[in-house]
Each structure stands twice: as structure tokens, then as C-alpha cells.
């Protein structure tokens, strides 16, 4: 009997394992499950753990990963309230909240994505209630980006949670662009804005340069005028002082006058003078050729 005991235990264990395999299932911490009885979904399980069921074909278990999944919707062109068309790409974070409904209504993951895509497309209507300046503006007061996203989020999650058992937790606009036709116009505008800026800068440069140089010129003139004034003053001082000396001349005015005349004569006729004199002027009076007379003979002693 001893040797049979071992095999019996092993056989028993194998049987237990098989039974467990047939009659139980696990729900992992990231999963939710639905148990169908003869094809009818009856029970949904949200908590992880080990559970019991009747084997197929009585009961069947469907498991779903219930965690957050990110899905990027197709890009859509949509108008704002002020008739500006924009292109949006929206990223959506969703999860299976109610597996029972999900199983009944949705089939595969790709179906779920299609549903979400269409729902979000629908929710873009929200943008029709807002102006473009509420999304894009240098004036922070005008911006309502976050609010608009929240509007879309609550609208979308409302549509999907009861109908499909899908809970949309996150809605973020991933890209915001303008239609291609508008793009070229934007480039044109950017170019002309830059041109205006460039001209402005050049004009400012010229203006500043002119300011600096004309300031310099006028300063120079001031300086020279000051200098001239100073010079006049100095020369005046000189004249005044020399006048002091000339008081001496008062003592003997004729002598002073005479000497002065001589000086003037000398200075004015120093260069390029043409002088016309007659023979009576000394020493030219000697220019008469003298008659040379023989001296008379005198008696000898």
C-alpha cells in the first residue's frame, strides 16, 4: 500500500488542480470581469481576487482591463463662434467603468475607440460657442482654454458612461492648428509684421544717430562761441594793458606819432610795393649825372 500512497496523493493533487481550473477564475487588480450564465451577462466583478463559477458552457467569464487608456482622436476641422475654422487633435483618456454594459454594447477595443472618436467629434460643437480669442490670445483675461476643455469633457463623459459603460476621465487638446488655406495668409502676415518691425528699427536707428550727431554739432558750436567770447575778453585785457603802456606816449605825442608813422611805413610797404618817386626825393636826387669839370690849374708856389 505504501508505494501506492504516493501516486494516490499525486493523482489527488492533479484532480484538485483540474477542478480548480474548471471551477474558479482570478480577477487581477487591473481587471474587471463579467460572468455570463448561458450567454446572459449576469454578474460583474470589480474587485480583484479568486472567484468560483460553473465551467463552460454553463458560465463564461469575460475579463477587461479597467485602467486608463489614452486614445488620440482623428483630427477635425471645426468653426468657432466667430467663424474661424480650426483643426483639433484631441487626446482622450478613458476606461471601462461598467463592464456589464460594455460587454453588452461594445465588442472589441477598436469599437470602443470608434465610439469615443465619434463622441468627441460631437463634443467639438462646444467650440461653436466660444471665440478663437478664448483659446489663443495674448490677453490672459480672455483665455478660457481649460474651461472649454472641461465643457467638452463633461459632455463626452455624460454621453458614454451610461450608454456604453465607458468613463472618459481625461480630455486634452493635443494640437491646435489652422486650415492649410489660412496658413499661407498667416505667413504673409508674419512677413509683413516683420517688415514693419525692421523698418521701425532702422528709422529708430537713424533718428537716434541724427539726435546724437546734431547734439554734438550744437555742442561744438556752443563751445566755440564760448571760446570766442573768452578770446574777446582776453584780447580786450591785452588791449587794456597795452593801453596802459601807451599812456607813456601821452607824455610826448609828437615823438610817438612820428615813430608810429615810421613803423606803419615799414610794415605796409614790406611786400609787393610799387614806389613812384621823383628825382627830388633823396637819395634819388643824386641820379642827376653830374657834370665833370676839370679842376682849374692853380699857380705853382
Amino acid at each position: 500500500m505504501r508505494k501506492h500512497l504516493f501516486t494516490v496523493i499525486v493523482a489527488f493533487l492533479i484532480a484538485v488542480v483540474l477542478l480548480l481550473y474548471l471551477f474558479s477564475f482570478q480577477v487581477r487588480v487591473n481587471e474587471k470581469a463579467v460572468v455570463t450564465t448561458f450567454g446572459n451577462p449576469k454578474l460583474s466583478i470589480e474587485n480583484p481576487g479568486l472567484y468560483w463559477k460553473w465551467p463552460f458552457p454553463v458560465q463564461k467569464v469575460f475579463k477587461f482591463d479597467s485602467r486608463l487608456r489614452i486614445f488620440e482622436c482623428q483630427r477635425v476641422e471645426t468653426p468657432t463662434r466667430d467663424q474661424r475654422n480650426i483643426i483639433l487633435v484631441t487626446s482622450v483618456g478613458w476606461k471601462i467603468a461598467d463592464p456589464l454594459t460594455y460587454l453588452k454594447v461594445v465588442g472589441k477595443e477598436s469599437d470602443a475607440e470608434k465610439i469615443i472618436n465619434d463622441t468627441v467629434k460631437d463634443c467639438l460643437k462646444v467650440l461653436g460657442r466660444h471665440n478663437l480669442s478664448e483659446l489663443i490670445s495674448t490677453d490672459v483675461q480672455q483665455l478660457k482654454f481649460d474651461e472649454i476643455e472641461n465643457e467638452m469633457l463633461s459632455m463626452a463623459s455624460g454621453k458614454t458612461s451610461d450608454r456604453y459603460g465607458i468613463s472618459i476621465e481625461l480630455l486634452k487638446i493635443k494640437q491646435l492648428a489652422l486650415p492649410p488655406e489660412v496658413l499661407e495668409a498667416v505667413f504673409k502676415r508674419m512677413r509683413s509684421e516683420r517688415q514693419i518691425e525692421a523698418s521701425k528699427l532702422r528709422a529708430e536707428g537713424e533718428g537716434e544717430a541724427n539726435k546724437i550727431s546734431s547734439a554734438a554739432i550744437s555742442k561744438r558750436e556752443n563751445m566755440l562761441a564760448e571760446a570766442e567770447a573768452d578770446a574777446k575778453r582776453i584780447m580786450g585785457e591785452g588791449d587794456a594793458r597795452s593801453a596802459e603802456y601807451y599812456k607813456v606816449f601821452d607824455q610826448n605825442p609828437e615823438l610817438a606819432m612820428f615813430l608810429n608813422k615810421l613803423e606803419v611805413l615799414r610794415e605796409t610797404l614790406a611786400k609787393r610795393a610799387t614806389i613812384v618817386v621823383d628825382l627830388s626825393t633823396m637819395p634819388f636826387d643824386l641820379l642827376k649825372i653830374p657834370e665833370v669839370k676839370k679842376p682849374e690849374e692853380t699857380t705853382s708856389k
Partner: protein
Amino acid sequence: MSPELEKKEEAQAKKLQIEEEKDPGYQSLAEALRISFIILKIGISIVIIYFFLSGLFVVQSDEQAIKLRFGRIVGTKADQIIPAGIHWAWPAPIDEIIKFPVEKTQLIRLSTFWHEPSVADTKEGRVERKGVGMEKGYALTGDLNILHSQWEIRYRISDPVKYLTKMYFETEQELARKNREIQKRRESLFERLRERRKKESGDEHKKKEEDTEFVDRMVERAQKNVDNFVRACICNAILKEIAQVKIKDALSTAKESITVRVESRVKNYFDEIDCGIELKQITLSDITYPPEVKEAFNDVFLAEQQKDTMRKAAQAYETKILSGAEGEKAAIISAAETYKVKVVKSAEADADYIKNLLAKYPNNPEKLKHFLDIHHQEVVQEVLDNAQEKFILPATGKGEKMQLRVQIPRDEQLEREKLKEKF
């Protein structure tokens, strides 16, 4: 039955049995069964030992692990994380060990807002994106201008429990399978595109775009779900921040503040979802205006430089003028000083001369007159000497009038000087 008969039957049966056992066929069968039983026992023992050994696992130093028992996380909040080291757990299907690279920094290079596909994309042979709106990525600035930027994001998994329970992620095999599927689809798509291009027409063009977009999106889906989550958060943050600034500022002074604000937005998003991811760093690796308007932008830089050059030239001119003026000013004053000195000195000299003269001949007017006559003569002599032209006319008889015609020659020196002035 009588005991005697029973004993007889037993003995007979035993006899048969012994005879049976003596049969070689029976013997080998029994032998075979015994051997196979032993092998089976050994095999099962090995399996059981292997079963238990497979419960051993190693957690690396840069990892953390979580144990699931029948799908449920084992442990209380405090000790759910299994630290580094060698551990043992019941093998599947009882326990499951999941490891998380907690210290490893994940890097995303974001080229969503860049005007070319990233180098990585080109390597993988992505469809070349030609600018039809979205393929050339950009962000709109607050003043409705177009801006391209490249970013790098570093994040890590910080809380494995939250990450495991909240964020969907695929196993390595699933990702590999996805990639294979996409490769196949991309190849078949390219085939179709090539065929279609041969018969090009207008409507085909639109469908072509949709196809390439589809491929792009498939490729993105093959990225890890958590990657997509991070990308969605950061793209959204970048979008919102750039939509608030002027392009001029975004390209110059506001770069840092934009990065800081993007970082804080993304951190908030992560906190909101609370899925165990930690943002480590966001870097703005490049930000620029579109290539289409490059010339216009460069012209502005040029204009800035020119403005600076003009200012500097004017300043140089200013310096030159003012230093010249200083010189001129000095010259004027110096000339005045010279005049003053000269005038005073000359007056002094004249005065002294007269004083000396008078002192020399104080009481002798005749001698003074004699001296003055000689001086007079000297001066006239000098003057006559210096004269360029001298005309000596005969004396007339008294009372006669004489008419004089004098030809004054041209002054060569004056002519020369006048010519000099002309040039």
C-alpha cells in the same frame, strides 16, 4: 466451504501465480511497468521541485516589485513594495510578480511641434510629412503667429502600486506584436500608395492623406500607453502656454518662463490623474520661426544690428567732433592769449623804447632830432629796398604839369597764390 477446500484453492492460486510470474512475457511486462512507474515518480518529483523553484525571483537594485496573489495585491499599504534582493513566491497561478523600473528615467523627444519629422521617425522610415497643416507641426502664439519647437521630457515611474492599478500598460510581447502588425500594414499601405501614384488624380490625393495619417496614428499607438499619456499632457501644456505669448517674446525673453509654466502644468495633470508617474525634467531643446518666413525674421535681426551700427557711428562722429572742438577752442583761446601777450609786449617794448630814448637825450633836443633823422633815413632805405618796382620820375620845372602813365606789371606771386586757392 470447508477450510480445507479454501486452503487448497489458495495453494492452487498461488501455484498459478508463481507459474505466471515465471512466464517471461509477464515478467518483462511487470518489469516495464515498474520502471515506467519509477520514471514517472522521478518525473513528477522533478516537476514538483521545479514548480517550487520557479517561485524564486530577483529584484534588481533599480527596480521595485509587487506580488499579486490570486490577482490581489499582497500586503498592506506599507509593505506592498518588494525591495531589491532574492525572494520567493508561489508560482503561477497562485502568485504573480510584476517588476517596475523605478529608477530608470524614460525619455520622450517630442517633435509634434517641429517642422520636420524627428530623426528617429525618419530612421524608421515614416512617411515623409509634407506641409499640409498638421504634418508640419507647430503651435500658435497669442498673436496668431506660427512657432516651431522641440522638447525633451524625462519622467519615471515613482509609485508602482498606483501605476499598476491606474495606468494601462502592455507587456513586452504585446508591444512586439503590435509593432509587427504595424510593419505589415505599413508595407501593404506603401504598396497601395505606389500603385495609386501611378494613376494620380485629385480625389486620390485626399485619400492618400487619410491613409498616411492612419499609419502615423498606428505607429503612435504602438508606443506605450503611458508614453501617449505623457505626450498628451505635455502637448496640451505647451499648446496652452504658447497660445498666451507673443512670438517676439517666445523667441527671446519668455523661453524660460514658458518652460517653467509648462512643467508646472504637466505636474498638475499628473497629480490630477494620480497614476504614480513623476515628472523629472522638461527641456526646450529648440524654438524657432517657420522656415517660410526666415528671410523676414533675419531682416529684423539685420535691422537691429544696423540700428546699433548707426548709433555707434553717430557716437564715433560725436567723439570726433567734440574732441576737434576742444582743439579748436584751445586754438582760439591760445591765439587770443598770443595776441594779448604780443600786444602787451609790443606796447611795452614801444613804451620802453620811447622811455629809453627820452632818457638818453633828456636835455638835448638836437641830439634827439639827429638820432631821429638817421632813423628816418634807415626806414626809408629799407622800404625802398623792399619795393618790388621803383619808378623814378624826372623833376618837373616848377609850375609844369606832367601826365604820367605807368604800367604796373602783373604780380606773379599774387597770381600764384590765387591759383593755389582755386585748387
